[in-house]
């Protein structure tokens, strides 16, 4: 059996387990073994990645903990062309992150197998939170994000990822001529009337739901009367934090507009570099890693894993990708570890809470030079 086939078999084994029911020790050992195989495979596929791994302070082959394996900072996926373990011909789709102004987006390449596992991973996780049934799917986004494309943004990927829960899909935003969006109220009210008593899945980016649905409907005093919805949202809080919108306020506002209980509003943490793995809040407000992934929170001062009650940088670990080296990624996000294996929701393993983006470093003094005094002259060089 080839190394890749062996890895794929291992991933399938983890994907078919109950996502949050595995004993943490067993899960750790299974993940560690598989991640080592994946690192060795990736080294064979990409000499530059191999160079990084070989110069890591410790040899991954003898590591006894996932935390000791070499991890990449998530920023390396901003490089173009993207860091890959497959040739161009094998790339089925490229996912791009929603970069903030002035920043380059992250890009990850998916081959068919990784794309399939991504979908399966996502379904496995979401099913654990909303149940397996297929149901009407209301997308708080514009129609162009409903169709799969070769190069897809984070919003499109998230919308697409939940399609397998859908019996039918309706998007309720329309693009405006100014390049902005607005709610298609007529369409939305028709859906609300038709699906009044149905179990409905709603998805949108957090700020999109707030800006284009919750706020306008609240101002107009409209309640949709859909008590059985599950509203999933992701994409971060940065824009809403600027507007001083808290999680509680968001949950209350969205629940009031949909006419459902606030517990039906589910925020999840995820990123395109960590394909197929998302971290929804459990009923106790904590997040958990599924059987095929792990979370390590690292102290920024030492990069050692923090203990329960402490905060640090989030490292996401996943066995799912084989088309790019996204197994072990240090993010620029912060989280607090809540506990080891004792969340009352019953999900096993580490529980954590997202604590926001690491604040941009302060201006770093008189050595903080970002511009050249004399930019290089263009077009005057001698060939």
């Amino acid at each position, binding site marked *: 059996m080839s190394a890749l086939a062996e890895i794929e078999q291992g991933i399938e084994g983890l994907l078919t387990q109950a996502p949050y029911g595995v004993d943490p020790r067993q899960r750790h050992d299974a993940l560690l073994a598989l991640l080592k195989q994946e690192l060795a495979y990736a080294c064979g596929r990409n000499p530059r990645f191999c160079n990084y791994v070989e*110069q890591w302070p410790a040899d991954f082959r003898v590591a006894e903990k996932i935390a000791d394996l070499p991890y990449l900072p998530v920023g390396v996926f901003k490089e173009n062309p993207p860091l890959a373990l497959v040739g161009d011909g094998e790339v089925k789709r490229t996912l791009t992150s929603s970069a903030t102004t002035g920043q380059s987006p992250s890009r990850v390449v998916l081959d068919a197998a990784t794309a399939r596992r991504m979908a399966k991973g996502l379904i496995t996780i979401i099913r654990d939170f909303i149940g397996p049934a297929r149901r009407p799917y209301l997308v708080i986004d514009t129609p162009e994000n409903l169709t799969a494309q070769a190069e897809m943004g984070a919003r499109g990927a998230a919308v697409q990822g939940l399609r397998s829960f859908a019996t039918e899909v309706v998007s309720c935003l329309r693009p405006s001529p100014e390049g902005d969006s607005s709610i298609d109220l007529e369409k939305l009210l028709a859906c609300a009337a038709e699906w009044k008593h149905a179990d409905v899945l709603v998805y949108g980016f957090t700020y999109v739901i707030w800006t284009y649905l919750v706020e306008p409907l609240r101002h107009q005093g409209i309640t949709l009367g859909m008590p059985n919805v599950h509203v999933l949202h992701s994409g971060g809080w940065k824009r809403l934090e600027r507007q001083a919108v808290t999680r509680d306020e968001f949950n209350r506002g969205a629940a009031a507009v949909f006419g459902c209980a606030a517990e039906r509003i589910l925020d999840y943490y995820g990123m395109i570099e960590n394909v197929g793995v998302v971290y929804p809040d459990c009923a106790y407000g904590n997040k958990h890693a599924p059987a095929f992934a792990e979370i390590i929170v690292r102290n920024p*001062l030492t990069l050692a894993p923090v203990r329960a009650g402490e905060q640090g940088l989030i490292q996401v670990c996943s066995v799912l990708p084989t088309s790019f080296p996204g197994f072990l990624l240090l993010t620029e996000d912060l989280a607090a570890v809540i506990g080891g294996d004792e969340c009352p929701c019953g999900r096993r393993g580490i529980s954590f809470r997202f604590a926001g983006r690491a604040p941009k470093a302060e201006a770093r003094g*008189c050595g903080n030079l970002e511009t050249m005094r004399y930019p290089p002259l263009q077009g005057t060089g001698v060939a």
Partner: protein
Amino acid sequence: MSDLIQSMDSPQTIAGAARQLREIARQKAIAPQAVLEVFDQWAAALDDRGGHEAPGMTFLRLWLRRGNLEPVVLRELGANSLNGEWREDGRARLRAFPLGVVGHWPAGNVAIQPILSLTCALLGGNTCLVRVPSRLVSITRQVMDKLQEADRSGGLIERVAMISFDHARMDLHEAMAQAVDGAMIWGGADAVMQVRRLPFPHWARVLVFGPRVSAAIMDAETWGDRTERSSWCRRIARDVWQFDQQACSSPQTLFLERGAGCDPSEFVEDLRQAFQTENRQHPRRQIEPALTSAICLVRASWLLGNAGNRAVFPASPDWTILLGTGEEMPTPTQGRTLSVLVVDDLLKVISKFDGTLQTLGLGIRDVQKEEKLALAAGRHGVDRIVKLGRMHVFSSPWDGTELVRPMVRLVRHVPG
């Protein structure tokens, strides 16, 4: 003992403080000699310390000593300037008078900078209005308490008003700028640009320091010498560690001249040991998560960018050595991250400097070669060329500018 740093929250209180300082500057002249005497006692008082020391305190004690500052005054203000009297200048006479009130906007990253900045203006007989960055309030207060102890007559302490206010309060920055006759501005690009835009009076002299970066060069004879190499590496480590590599004089890149029989990996091994030792002696006590991310990213980008690149670093973000080739200085990461680049020709490296390089640290054995490199560096905008291990020694001139003279007026009297 009164609190020497006042929190201000209205333009009027700042204007009031400046008015008082201006009166003192006009009414009470003080000669450099008298200032030097108090500074010397201040240095001694700082020796009497206990507990943890802020970065740069050892240097501050040396800086304040008369033996250090007297030559600066003599060189900048003239041979007979210590008593503040007239000196002959042909058929005329010259005498240094203070500008008046000098405003200081020090950078937030160098603990002793508010003090260094104000000492320059005090030597010129000025009074000083110093905005202390919030993170430096505590250390500045400790140092100023020692001045209060040393300055028994109070003649110097009354010439200083230290204030703190929220850096985002532009109305307070503006009030401060409008009230001064001179300004000394230190810091990064954004901070400096912001302060420069303030409404200073048209007569105000504005002196700007920063932002700059620094680098080091070593010839093959020096770094290839196994007997002396570890000593050089210790000096480099010291230069990297001071001010957490955030100062304009911190080396970000070390260029090694390629030499037959010299193995850069051996050199990097010695450097690793020096960095480890320095780190044990001066461990980091805190770090911004964003800097940790930047350090992890530069390690990865360096190694992923070229399979021939090498790097040495611990599991923590404590320090990083990136080894490769190339004549261009990589974008600095700071956070004790040193790029070590092997090059064929050091002069070619210098020819690419664009004027942003402040200090060039040297490890050059041959005197004539050093002479040639120093000349080239000066031509390409470098303002300080010093031996490795002495890159942060604050001295006049700094950034190519004198430190005392710009804040005085040289008055010419032609007797009738």
